[in-house]
């Protein structure tokens, strides 16, 4: 069983090819605005490094958000077109799940992504990675209040969010993420789409 993992939901590209329990190749690089330029060449390097063809992949696991809207679309487009045209099983996971699962400590995990203007995308996961608080676009103060309910917790962030104490910076463990979701049910590539957790400003104003 070989899996390809793609996460472009931040200014980083996190991608890897996993075979059984082994990581064959991975990429964890910051690209900022060059992500659209670099994502595919870097993914191609993974195939070269692991001496595999794109046809050899048995499953694609792609992050569908939340995070940078443009960023998410890059990874999702590559993954869904790839899965659609070669008929490869595909499944989506959230960036927040990936953050919680990667954490080392046995604690309640609160992954958070900056959503600007005092808002974050956040969720809460217990020691067994069960979701206690569904991921939301939420005011930072509100989620911090929610967090107070727990005693032993860690906040994981991607970009530094000011005003938060005891935060850990996200270090993805691609092997762990892929193993965790390897058996997650596949969906039709057509329905692999970003889950932004937030309407566009134009839609918000209209409502």
């Amino acid at each position: 069983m070989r899996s390809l993992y793609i996460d472009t939901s931040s200014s980083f590209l996190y991608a890897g090819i996993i075979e059984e329990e082994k990581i064959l190749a991975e990429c964890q690089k910051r690209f900022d605005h060059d992500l659209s330029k670099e994502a595919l060449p870097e993914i191609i390097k993974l195939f070269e490094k692991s001496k595999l063809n794109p046809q050899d992949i048995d499953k694609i696991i792609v992050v569908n958000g939340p995070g940078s809207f443009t960023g998410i679309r890059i990874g999702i487009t590559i993954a869904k077109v790839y899965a659609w045209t070669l008929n490869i099983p595909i499944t989506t996971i959230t960036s927040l799940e990936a953050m919680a699962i990667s954490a080392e400590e046995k604690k309640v995990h609160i992954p958070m992504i900056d959503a600007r203007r005092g808002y974050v995308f956040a969720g809460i996961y217990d020691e067994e990675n069960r979701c206690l608080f569904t991921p939301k676009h939420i005011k930072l103060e509100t989620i911090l209040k929610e967090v107070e309910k727990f005693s032993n917790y860690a906040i994981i962030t991607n970009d530094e969010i000011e005003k938060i104490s005891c935060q850990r910076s996200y270090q993805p463990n691609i092997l762990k993420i892929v193993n965790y979701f390897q058996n997650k049910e596949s969906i039709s590539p057509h329905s692999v789409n970003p889950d932004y957790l937030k309407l566009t400003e134009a839609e918000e104003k209209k409502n």
Partner: protein
Amino acid sequence: MFITITKENINSLPTGFLKREEVEEELINNPFGKYIIYVEKDNPFLLLGYIYYSEIYDRVEINQFEVEKAHRNCGIGNKLLKKFTEIVEKGITLEVRENNKNAIYLYEKYGFQQVAKRKKYYQEIDGLLMERKIKEGISMKDVYILGIESSCDETSVSIIKNGCSEIATVISSQIDIHKEYGGVVPEIASRHHVKNITFVLEESLEQAQMKIEEIDAIAITYGPGLIGSLLVGLEAAKILSYLYHKPLIPVHHIAGHIYANSLVKPLNFPLLALVVSGGHTELIEMRDHFEFTKLGGTLDDAIGECYDKVARVIGLEYPGGPKIDQLARVGKDTYQLPIPLKDNSYNFSFSGLKSAVINLSHNEKQRGNKLRKEDLATSFQKVAVESVITKTRKALLDKNIKHLIVAGGVAANAELRTEIIKMAEGIEVEVSIPPMKYCTDNAAMIAAAGYYAYKLGRRADFSLNSLSSDPLK
């Protein structure tokens, strides 16, 4: 006896009615050029006949075919053409004077067929385009380009054969979604592109009854346009290009609009392209494929943008441009509006005209006069179209260009079409305006442009990025 002469063995050209210097010059200037010559075995140093041809990748064109005067009607032409069609394993085309019955008879004998007539190709005489297909039913190798376009609010995929025949085109338009916001909302457009992309790809392949394996190259709009929208098409094109080892052809959106015309008839150079759309108003001179010289453009608003803004002022729903065109047909030209930028340049300006309409509408309101929408539409359209016509006419005359093509969404405007045709007729310029369906954004035009870019060897690698603005190239 036959000898093939190329740049390398030009010294083996026998003496005769063909001058060595001429042959040398031809072969230096034409990298595809070759000669096949005929000599008698017992006099191998005297040239009796030749075919000068160009082998351009997968096709062959006969440029000249001549037999020495004193040796005509001895079967030399026959032998040459027989040999030629045997050694060339490609589709062959040629042009011949319509009144040259002997030559046409000979060509037909060796499997050439008349495929088109070229009016006045040889001064006063029409030319015939003849083609010899490789085998029965198979023409020169067909080239299929899959084009993808997502620069604004239309997700489109198209498959075009040989740059001119449409095999399939699918356009998923978001116009009804953006209508509610009075214009295209970039983030909403991007979100829909990503949702649509695989559906549109799938439908186009189904329509064409083709697999991606059968496609020769993938053409993609890399810019200019909305960056988030462009990215979706771009990433899709890049991954497909990688997975199927198909060349990736970068296409400028405006080049696409211009090449929409080649879906109707081949481009005739030199030509002037008038590009009129929501984002562009430009006059571009073309001396050959993908050789663009911008003569002028708008200094502020694009004509389509101006139409949409004026439409909003007089209370028409987005997109207002086509609605103004409709209203203008029933109105009378009663409002005084200034003609923009009456100067000697090839530039345009529409912001002054837009402001004039806004002011006029305010003033009428203040005076308590009811705005006669249809009359304002008529007056506005008259001035806008006149400004475009004047500059276009000037460019055609100054540059002595006899072919005009119109491109872009505003080319769908009925009054503009009528006035352009009238103007062009007046100065004996041949004009080509693509049908409505190719005027607005679509991938057929991207695939058509992609075909010529492919032939020119243009390729992009997987680090191709999308650009919100980029000069036409």
